[in-house]
């Protein structure tokens, strides 16, 4: 069923790729419309949040000033926010990558968890070379682990048509169980749920070493890796033929098939890439903070990656600010804990996401 042309145009995204022939107006409106829902949703969410807080008997002004001061008002706060944003960049990129082919990777959580375990396992290997090769080796192994875990739903979809959402969700459970099994079978130190410490050569430096004001904050060099991944991915989507293939398959599956693109291969590529990105999500915690793997270290970052990608409209570069925002909210819970229950920030997150979806639909339809 095809809607009339006037409405089909509503979902069209012209900005940044097709508009070469001086159609500045179209380009500009694409950007404005692209950003507007996020701005409106965040604004509206903060307003509603203020209302909620005042219902709890706390002054919204005080609430927001404590929140702002505690998160982005100090170097330490920034350090915490950046630390929490780092894995979110990886998982956000993971979801955004699969979505280029319109595949939903709900499995970032499991992919990140397994990747984290591999980081710790390779990192603790006594034969590991020194930095930077030790780090590189650990990262490659984690990406490979995540990639394999992501490739499974990709292959199943390509061969049997089973839906990637179901398979990735189920594989999360398998990943949890597998990790627990391996921990109890010798990977964990006795009487604990953590592994042995990794070698010096596998460690990522804390930012404090270069910028002393971050003292005490866990933010580390994994942040740069995350930002580099976002930039590289954006470039890859623009410059690589396979990147374009993924997008064409996602936006026009029928036309892509008629043109002879290999749907199965692209499906596997999308899911493998997504898994590899999520597999790196543990770099910050395992290689740059605790220096070991600990059960439950992901803290839901894999699932939150879906929200990060949504707010970033699946554009790799926008994933970075989006992850920062969610990182700030998730650290903000600790900051405002003395005023209101920490879970209020989770509510705020949810409200902002719902508003974003609402505004995105609304504005999307108006555009013609």
């Amino acid at each position, binding site marked *: 069923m095809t809607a009339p042309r006037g409405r089909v145009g509503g979902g069209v995204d012209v900005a940044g*790729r097709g508009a070469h022939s001086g159609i500045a107006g179209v380009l500009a409106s694409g950007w404005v419309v692209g950003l507007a829902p996020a701005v409106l949703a965040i604004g509206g969410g903060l307003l509603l949040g203020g209302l909620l807080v005042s219902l709890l008997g706390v002054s919204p002004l005080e609430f927001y000033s404590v929140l702002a001061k505690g998160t982005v008002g100090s170097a330490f706060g920034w350090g915490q926010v950046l630390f929490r944003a780092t894995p979110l960049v990886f998982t956000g990129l993971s979801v955004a990558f699969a979505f280029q082919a319109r595949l939903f990777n709900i499995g970032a959580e499991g992919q990140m968890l397994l990747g984290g375990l591999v980081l710790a396992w390779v990192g603790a290997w006594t034969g590991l070379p020194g930095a930077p090769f030790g780090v590189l080796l650990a990262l490659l192994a984690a990406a490979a682990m995540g990639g394999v875990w992501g490739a499974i739903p990709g292959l199943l979809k390509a061969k049997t048509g089973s839906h990637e959402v179901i398979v990735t969700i189920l594989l999360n459970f398998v990943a949890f169980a597998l990790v627990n099994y391996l921990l109890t079978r010798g990977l964990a130190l006795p009487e604990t749920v953590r592994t042995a410490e990794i070698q010096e050569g596998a460690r990522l430096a804390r930012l404090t070493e270069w910028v002393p004001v971050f003292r005490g904050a866990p933010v580390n060099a994994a942040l740069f890796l995350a930002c580099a991944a976002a930039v590289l991915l954006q470039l890859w989507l623009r410059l690589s033929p396979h990147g374009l293939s993924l997008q064409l398959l996602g936006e026009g599956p029928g036309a892509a098939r008629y043109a002879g693109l290999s749907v199965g291969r692209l499906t596997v590529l999308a899911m493998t890439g997504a898994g590899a990105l999520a597999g790196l999500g543990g770099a910050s915690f395992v290689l740059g903070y605790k220096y070991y793997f600990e059960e439950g270290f992901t803290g839901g970052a894999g699932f939150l990656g879906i929200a990060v990608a949504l707010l970033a409209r699946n554009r790799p570069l926008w994933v970075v600010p989006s992850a920062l925002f969610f990182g700030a909210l998730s650290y903000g819970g600790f900051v405002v804990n003395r005023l209101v229950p920490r879970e209020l920030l989770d509510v705020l997150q949810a409200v902002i996401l719902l508003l974003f979806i609402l505004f995105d639909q609304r504005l999307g339809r108006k555009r013609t």
Partner: protein
Amino acid sequence: MNPAVEFVEVTKRFGPVTANEQVGFAAHPGEIHALVGENGAGKSTLMGILAGFVQPDSGIVRIDGVPAPVGSPRAMLGRGVGICAQHFHQVPTLTGYENIVLGTMAVGGRKQLGALMKRYGLDVPLDVPVERLSLGEQERIEILKLLYRDARILILDEPTAVLAASEVRSLFQILRRLAEEGRAILFVSHKLPEVMEIADRITVLRAGRVVTSRKKTEVTEDELVRLIVGGAPPPPARWSARVPGRPVLETRGLSLGRLAKFDVQVREGQIVGVGGVEGNGQQELTHALLGYRTPEAGTIQYLGQSVRPWKSHRFRQSIGVIPEDRQREGLVLGRSLVENGVLGRHERAPFTQGGILRWGRMREHAESIVDVYQVRPDAIGLPAVAFSGGNQQRFIAGRELTKKPPFLLAVHPTRGVDLKATQFLHGRLLEERTNGAAILLVSADLQELQTLADRVLILYRGQVAYSASREEIDPERMQRALLGLAGTSKEGTAKGGAPSNGPSSRGGGR
């Protein structure tokens, strides 16, 4: 009496593209009002405005003399406007009945529908998912839906594009009946003989403006052609004899679903036309050739080698395909012509070199297609969705033919395309034939088959009911084969053309 619909200075632009410019004309109750013009002349946009899907930039639409709130489909429905679009607005998995009552209070619906079907002779199964109905039947569901909602202003956008000749006749009877009851019917079509037959009044649009709006009796078909194209019409494409070369594509005993033991051979410099009413195995044939479905039996030979398109996509990439559904199968609508112009070829040289996409080359390529195939507007940065159907088709044909494919599969290449573009596309297909391409043309348009093909096969219920080389074509027999009336023996033709009688009744008559 007030006109049923009156457009007053309606203007609509899509970015740099002007779809309608100061459009003004009126359609009266009881009138069948034809709207004609080339692809991109602004007909669909105008009807979109009337149905409330498209918001005009300026101007007024009066319904029964009262200005209507534009830009709201619901409000327009409330004022009695109903549209039967070129691409039906139906939920494929729901039954006809469910599609009709969707969004209304269904109480007593069935009884009312029964009465409507009887009154207008609109026979159609109501309890079958619409995806299993033929396009002609789906269209009847669509018209029933309009009547069920008591639409007094009916918009029919290219309603005959998917119909066989006999179905067109019964549609026209229904339309007459509806007009006699005082409804206004807006009939959008490219088929001028049909327009001259059915319309009371004809409005011609060219480049978004009204050229003329007059009674049918005041204009001839030839004049109409001139008004539409704005000058003398282009000469029709010329076929010329050519000795075919070696075989390029050959199927033996190809069977899939309806399609049974299909044999065809297409040689270099040859066009083989496959005709028939929609749903007699054409889709199975194209799906098997493109590898969408695995044939139940049979082989496909390509350039002397056995190929299995359903196993490998390499064959698909090496051939040219003008698909049936240009919007879903031919284009990625949200992407610009730059990306669409290299679709499927972007992973190889010259568009990719050293693993990097060469956007400059891709742009040049799109520019050259737009130039040679006269796609308008010539803005390669616009998304494909911004172009009219005819221009989309020009672009797809351009993309596929510039590949210089040894084999081209063209499925309904000129459906819903205006005269100028049709003749242009015909010319290009014949030119490729001269250059040595092997072309398999699937079309429901007998005229088109006779214009282009070296050999014609007519499918009926998945079997070849008629096959003749160009010189031997007997139009009478071809038409009968289409309806399932052609026997292998020549007797029995005296029974005449009652179209509803299939071969089963013929068998019984023996």
